[in-house]
């Protein structure tokens, strides 16, 4: 893909966000500028509380930047929209709706007729490998299954942009690995623009085209590593997780990124 042909999908210009808690206000995000191309998978990593979720929420339209602006396709973002789907860490499934009804939610609002909806749902249920569970309720599903439904719900809505906030954070290590592989596979099949937030450096390197490393609070961009452009780990997407993770290139990158984050934690006395 020719780089010049890609367009700026999401753009943050000098975004700062203030937060108020118990009569104290503090700066969560400090003058961050970032541009995300269409079809790019960008991962943000950083120490706890560095403002990465807050930053993502400005793109989601759930938080207004105190300073600076956020844009999608050149237009300013002023509120949430189905074009910027969000996958939350706590799943946020509607407990009174079945799996099918959850996935169907956004589709109804787009006015999509029933047959087409059913088609779409069938396709995504297959994609997330939950055939047979269409009529189940969230409380009957395991954590991994719930998160897959949450992802399918957003995916089925075909947003132009996917914002994922530590979506695998609540899962156990084994489920998490499988979900990462699934997501990588899904991304190959249906390329979207993705902004992904995580604590895990492994996950960041495995999934991201670009890895953005943030400083501790107030969050600034410390460094950006362009894995795909600089071809740092060739053929990464075609390999399994356990294969990638043991590559020398992977371990080098991990060392570098983790070193940066660790420095932040120790310097700024977060622990």
């Amino acid at each position, binding site marked *: 893909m020719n780089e010049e042909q890609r367009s700026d999908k999401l753009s943050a210009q000098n975004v700062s966000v203030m937060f*108020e808690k118990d009569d104290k206000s503090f700066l969560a995000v400090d003058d961050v500028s970032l541009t995300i191309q269409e079809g790019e998978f960008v991962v943000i990593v950083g120490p706890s509380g560095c403002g990465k979720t807050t930053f993502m929420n400005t793109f989601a339209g759930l938080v207004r930047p105190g300073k600076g602006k956020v844009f999608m396709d050149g237009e300013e973002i002023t509120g949430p929209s189905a074009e910027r789907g969000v996958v939350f860490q706590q799943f946020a499934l509607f407990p009174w709706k079945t799996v099918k009804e959850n996935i169907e939610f956004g589709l109804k609002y787009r006015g999509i007729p029933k047959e087409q909806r059913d088609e779409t749902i069938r396709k995504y249920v297959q994609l997330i490998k939950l055939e047979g569970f269409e009529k189940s309720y969230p409380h009957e599903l395991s954590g991994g299954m719930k998160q897959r439904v949450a992802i399918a719900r957003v995916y089925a809505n075909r947003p132009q942009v996917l914002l994922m906030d530590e979506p695998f954070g609540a899962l156990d290590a084994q489920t998490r690995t499988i979900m990462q592989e699934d997501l990588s596979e899904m991304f190959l099949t249906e390329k979207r623009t993705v902004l992904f937030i995580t604590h895990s450096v492994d996950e960041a390197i495995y999934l991201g085209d670009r890895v953005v490393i943030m400083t501790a609070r107030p969050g600034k961009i410390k460094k950006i590593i362009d894995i795909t452009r600089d071809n740092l780990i060739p053929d990464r997407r075609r390999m399994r997780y356990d294969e990638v993770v043991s590559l020398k290139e992977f371990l080098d990158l991990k060392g570098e990124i983790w070193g940066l984050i660790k420095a932040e934690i120790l310097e700024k006395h977060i622990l």
Partner: protein
Amino acid sequence: MSLKKNSKVSRTVILAAVSMIAVIGVWLFLTSVLRIIPPAFLPPPQNIVIDFLRILESPYVGHTLVGHTLVSLQIVLGGFFSALLIGIPLGILMGWFKRIEAVVDPLFQLLRPIPPLAWIPISLLWFGIGVQSKIFVIWLSAFVPCVINSYTGIRLTDPLLVKAALGLGVKRQQDLLREVAIPSALPIILGGVRIGLGSAWMTLVAAELLASDAGLGYMMQMARRALEPSVIILGMLVIGILGALMARGLRALENRVCPWVKEEEH
């Protein structure tokens, strides 16, 4: 950003003030200005204030407002405290000792669905029109929630805590009860006490409406017969305020006695 919060708070206050003024305004308008509502039906707001001062100073059907209030309070508190004294220990014992539960529970479950108010006529038959009959019914109405909550509180004792105590050397039943079960059940017990107080208060009003010669309920009944709704309304307000104060007092007590409980939103 804190400017935003302040303006939000003042908006709430302004709207609240607007609505209160509007209500009183409409009330005033319909009763005093347009006079389409007769004073025997709903008195104009100023009448209420006037009558308030009147019954504060001079006796109305036997006592001043304060006098009636005290009569009611005495009876409620009397019945209420005796209910606590018997109900809480009974509930605790029922919760802890299965045998006691087996004996007492079926009788309790039989009598429980009957609203305490329903006992008033029988109580009058047994004890006459005096104070005793009222205290009996009030006692009954506070007794039930105290027993139920104490029982539930003890039953919900986390077995993990009991095991921890056993492992630390506490062996006798009464010690376990005293050191683990009762403290852990305290919040629920106090909740039952709060419910019991509300219940007692309600039952008192009903009892006084039916057969009394003093007290707030009696005052309201007499005012109704005399077609003086302002006194009725005053009675209602006093009852409401007293009830709210007692509930708030209990909640403060709860917070002092059980400092480990997280404050709920409501």
